[in-house]
Every structure is written in C-alpha cells, then in structure tokens.
C-alpha cells in the first residue's frame, strides 16, 4: 500500500500556471457540489444523497500484483519479461493537464505501473496562459471537424508557448511520448536528444479542419511513430502508426468489483428498484449521447416489457447546453416514475460503478463518439450492452457476439425488448464482452503495449546504429 507522500511523487511535474485544455474537471477533487443539486427539481430527477455531495479522498494506486487475480499470473509474468530488457531505460510522458480528462486519468495509473516494472517514467505537463489553451481548445474542436479560422496570431501563440516549454523541459530519456496536439511542437528538441519520439493522439483525426491539420502535420511527421486509438481515427502519414486502444483500470473506483450489499445500498439511495429490470445509460447530458433518443427507445420497449430507465450523467450544472439537454430529457420523460434521471457530480465514479452493476442492460446510444469508454466499463461488468455504431464503439462491440450495435431509436427499442426476454443470449454476449475487455481494453494491456513499443523502437534504433 502506498502512502500519500509516495503517491504524490507520481504526479506530473509542472511549473508556472496551468489551465485545463480539454474542458476537464480541474479542481473537481477539491470542489463540493451546489447544495441545490441535492434537491429534486422534477418528478424524474432524483435527489442526490448527502454521501455524494463532496468528493471522496483519492484512492491509492494499485501495484502490479494487485492485477494478478484479474489477468492471471501468466500475463503478469509476460509484463515482467517484456520490461526486463528495458530496465534502466526511461520514458518521458508530456501532456497538457495534470488533472481532469481521460489522458491525465490514464497517466495517473500508467506511470506508477511502468516505474514499478523498473522502467522509470517521468510525467511532465506543459504550461501556458489562457490564450494558449483557448487556441488549443479551438484546435481540438477543429481537429474533430468544427469550422475554424486559423489566424497568424493563433499560430504564433501556439508556437511561442511550445518554444517556452521546450526551453523549460529536459529530454534525457530514451523514449519521449508527446500526448495530443497541444505540446506537439516539442519535437523541435529531438535534435538535442537521442530518444525515440512518439506522438500519442487521443483524438479522432478522421475529419479534421484541413488548415489546422496542415499546420500541425509538419510537426507530426518528424516523430518516429504515431499512436491512434482506432484505425478509423488515423491519417495517412509517412511514419509508422500504431493502434493503442484506450483502456479502463479494473481496480479503479469506477470499475472495481463491488459486493452486492454495496450495490443495493446505492440503488436504495437513488430509488432504483432492483427487483425489476433496469436499463441504464451513463453519459453527460449531451445531444451527441442522444439521451432523448434513449427515452423514446425505452418508451417503445416498455409497451412490451416491464423495465425502469436510469439516465445517470453530469454536465448539466456547469454547462448551459447540458442544462438545456437535461430539460429536454425531463420533458421527454414526462411523468413516468420509472424514468430515473441522476445529475451526478464528476466524482461519483463509485456510484456509477454500482448503478452499472445493478443494471440488466446498459445502453450507449451515441450519435457521435470518441472511443466510448462507458461502453468498455459496461462490458467489463459483463453487462449486455446496446450501443450506437459510431466512433470507437465497433472496436468494442462485435455485433451479436460481444454486444449489440444499433442505428436508430427503433433498433435500440427492439434490442432492449430482445435482451430482456432472452436472458441466455444476454448473458452470453455479456460474458464475451467482459472477455473482450480483458483481452484488449484493460490498463495492463496498455502497459504491455507501451513496453512492446519501447522494445520495438529500441531495436530499430539499434539496427539503425549498426547500419551506420
């Protein structure tokens, strides 16, 4: 078990000011929720129990051996074998935010595990003013396909802050990994280092604003390799491209096993009746997650099968669009007492875990999606899962084998009916879905991918050296 002090050493090193670049929940761990949120504001909106109104203390980082019961001794051995030849060689990870967002969450787990395997891994966070993070936020949206007018001023802000960070940071490791576009310009330091440089792109580049992409592309092409989260997110590049699926940590608050009594307690607190089927969607109140479509699908299905619908999400209290979507969901729900809407603060990972485990079926009827880690979470819990065939979801759901893909409200409604009335089939795809996650989407698989990539890059560096 690690002490608080030991954990603190795993956090990224930063100097200067920091602004979240991805709209993440910076500071969420020290925040508390608006007390008004605890009060119900409509028939379907459930009051939040006092236990979730303040964030819990951070959980300690797991050790590699803690995963043995999940992935098996043979897989733990494989990780140790892979790391053996890399001992004393080190990695630097650089991203743009220390807290909030999926990348920081992933690095918080990945860095200590690599270090435990004696592959010392250092995590640095770039710094920048509000102007820099406004530009990088706009770049982020543009790379996702939004229209953006790329000005000379924006380019200069981006380049100047990259230069400042380049002067501040040291690159003495054997592998340097730059996450996402914000610090991509740090590649200009590669001449001063003998490291292999890798660009890890966590966003979908399949349909970018061309001007922004053409501005960033010359930087990307200087790296030794790029990594994408799905083959469909990649671009044509002259450098090798690898596929690293995003992952979940099976020992995190969101995914760890829970005793049934704990699941029951959470359901009791939220007024969810476990004696009847529960259909759940966990996601922000965002139109791209189509929560209103889920309500319609539930209502169509309910003509044939008894069930409750739980919509557990957040984003309604700190985002005007989220509040509007929540209002639309409430209107669609009407007076149906079996629709339970939970507007949860961002630290409710444990409660989300319990609700997912209590569910009979999990739905993720997104219209547009990144990789869709809420699908991964549901599959890991062995839940028969119905999801929109968008973004990275088809990587996770092999139709009728590890879940069910749908393309419409009607399709979603039919699959809810089918899965609730064919429990053997539902159980089978749920079990296969869990195995799929175990094989491909766990944190330990991610550790393995980094070790494999590091070995491959070191071998190719050695081969280049021998050829000179």
């Amino acid at each position, binding site marked *: 078990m690690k002490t608080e002090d030991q954990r603190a050493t795993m956090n990224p090193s930063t100097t200067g000011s920091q602004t979240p670049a991805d709209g993440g929940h910076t500071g969420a761990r020290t925040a508390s929720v608006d007390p008004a949120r605890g009060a119900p504001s409509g028939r379907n909106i459930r009051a939040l129990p006092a236990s979730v109104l303040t964030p819990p203390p951070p959980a300690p980082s797991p050790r590699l051996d803690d995963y043995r019961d999940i992935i098996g001794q*043979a897989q733990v051995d*494989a990780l140790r074998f892979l790391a053996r030849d890399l001992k004393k060689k080190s990695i630097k990870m650089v991203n743009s935010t220390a807290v909030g967002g999926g990348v920081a969450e992933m690095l918080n787990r990945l860095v200590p595990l690599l270090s435990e395997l004696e592959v010392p891994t250092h995590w640095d966070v770039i710094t920048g003013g509000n102007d820099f993070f406004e530009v990088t936020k706009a770049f982020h949206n543009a790379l996702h396909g939004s229209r953006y007018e790329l000005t000379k001023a924006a380019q200069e802000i981006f380049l100047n802050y990259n230069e400042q960070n380049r002067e501040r940071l040291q690159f003495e490791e054997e592998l340097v990994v730059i996450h996402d576009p914000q610090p991509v310009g740090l590649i200009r330091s590669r001449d001063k280092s003998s490291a292999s440089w890798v660009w890890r792109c966590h966003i979908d580049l399949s349909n970018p604003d061309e001007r922004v992409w053409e501005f960033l592309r010359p930087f990307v092409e200087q790296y030794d390799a790029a990594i994408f989260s799905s083959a469909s997110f990649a671009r044509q590049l002259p450098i090798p491209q690898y596929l690293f699926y995003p992952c979940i940590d099976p020992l995190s608050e969101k995914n760890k096993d829970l005793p049934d009594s704990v699941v029951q307690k959470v359901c009791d607190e939220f007024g969810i009746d476990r004696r009847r089927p529960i259909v759940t969607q966990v996601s922000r109140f965002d139109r791209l997650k189509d929560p209103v479509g889920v309500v319609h699908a539930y209502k169509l299905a309910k003509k044939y099968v008894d069930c409750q619908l739980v919509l557990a999400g957040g984003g309604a209290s700190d985002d005007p669009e989220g509040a509007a979507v929540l209002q639309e969901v409430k209107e669609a729900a009407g007076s149906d007492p079996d629709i339970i809407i939970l507007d949860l603060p961002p630290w409710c990972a444990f409660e989300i875990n319990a609700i997912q485990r209590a569910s009979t079926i999990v739905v993720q009827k997104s219209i547009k999606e990144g990789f869709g880690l809420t699908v991964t979470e549901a599959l890991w819990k062995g839940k028969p899962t119905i999801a929109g065939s968008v973004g990275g979801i088809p990587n996770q759901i092999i139709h009728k*084998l590890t879940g069910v893909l749908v393309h419409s409200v009607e399709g979603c409604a039919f699959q809810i009916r089918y899965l609730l009335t064919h429990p053997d089939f539902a159980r089978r795809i749920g079990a296969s879905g869990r195995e799929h996650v175990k*094989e491909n989407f766990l944190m330990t698989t991610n550790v393995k991918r980094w070790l494999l990539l590091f*070995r491959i890059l070191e071998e190719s560096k050695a081969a280049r050296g021998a050829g000179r």
Partner: protein
Amino acid sequence: MPVADEQPVRHPNKPFYFNTSENLLRIGRQKATNLSELWQGLQTCPDDSIFQHTFRTLQEHHFIRQGFSNDFAHWCLFACNEPVLAEQLASVDVREFTAIEGLRRRMVGIVDEFLQQHPQSGARVAYEPFYFCASSIVVLPTQFAPDTLRGFVDGLRHVSVHSIHHHFIEARLRLHRMSNDFSNWLEQEVGLKQSAESIERIDIYTNTMEGVRQQIANIVEHALN
C-alpha cells in the same frame, strides 16, 4: 473429442519450452471501402496484414466459441451485408495453410469468384471501411520448460491462452508443416502418435482457446493415466 488409447513410450529427451507471443498492432496504409477494394487490398497488402486478419485475430477473439473466423469474413457480413461471401470466407481454416501465400490466394480466389458472380456488389460502398493492419510480434519465454509429461500438463494449464495460440495455431507457419508444437513434441519426444493426431484434429472454430487448452490437457492426461 475421442482420446487415443495409448501410453507414453519413452521419457522425453528434450524439455518442452513454453513460449508466448505478444503483439502490437500497426495501422496499415491501405483500406477498403467496398468489395472491389478489398479484393485489390488482399492481393497487395503485406503478408503480415493477411496474418493479422486471419491467424492473429483468432488470438484477439479467443473467447468467442462460434461466429468469428477472420476479419475479412466479419467485415463482409457486417459492413457489406454479404452473408454468402462472409460464410465462404469464414469457412477458410487457417490451419490448412503452412504459408501466408497460400492463404492469401484462397482469400483472393473466394472474393474474385464472388465478384464475378455478383459484379454489382463490387462497388457498393460498405457501411464502414476495412482498415488493413499488421502486427509487430515479440516472442517471450515463460517459466515453464517441463521435461516430463506430467510437467507438460501442468505447464499447459498455467500458461496464457496467448501461449496456446502461439504453439497450437501459429506454429504451422514456423514449422511449415501441418502440425503444431504440442503434437510435434508429444510424438517425437514421448512417442504419443495417436494423441498427437487427436490434438491436431481439435476444432479451433467451435472452441474458445480455453476450450482448446482443456481438450489438449484431457488428451495428454488420458495417456498419462
């Protein structure tokens, strides 16, 4: 699976070294948005792409008992809605091939024949593209190197399914013969010819890799007992 009624005839001279392989997926430069492009891609993609989408995908989906054979078949069904072609591609057993070239020719031949019979299907845009990928593979040792039959069964039960896949399925590309590392060792080192043949007949397409492991262990234990 019937098990052979035979006994070990000798003590193995050489231990069985259980290895395992781990792979890293590379995104290739080719993709197909319709069946004609798949046909072209099948002819021109690197050998390791064919390997990835046939041999290797079985490892990635080792937990599925039925309905998954290779990525080409899966795409033809779910992205192109061509169940006939999907069934034909799915019926290709990778264990009939000891080299990628033969497997590639079979796949190309099936798609070619289908497109000749259904020319209108060639240009129909798929629901989602097929991305040709490949794997960088690293072979690793395990802690199991038994020199007895009992130790072999013990190792078999403890290694990962990746190791089973490595020795049982990928081996024929290494050996260039219609066999696998387990059957080879059992026959050559222990004289269990019938058991080796029984193992070779295990159907990998109607079993999970755990099921394959169990069947191999049952066959060897039967010989031991």
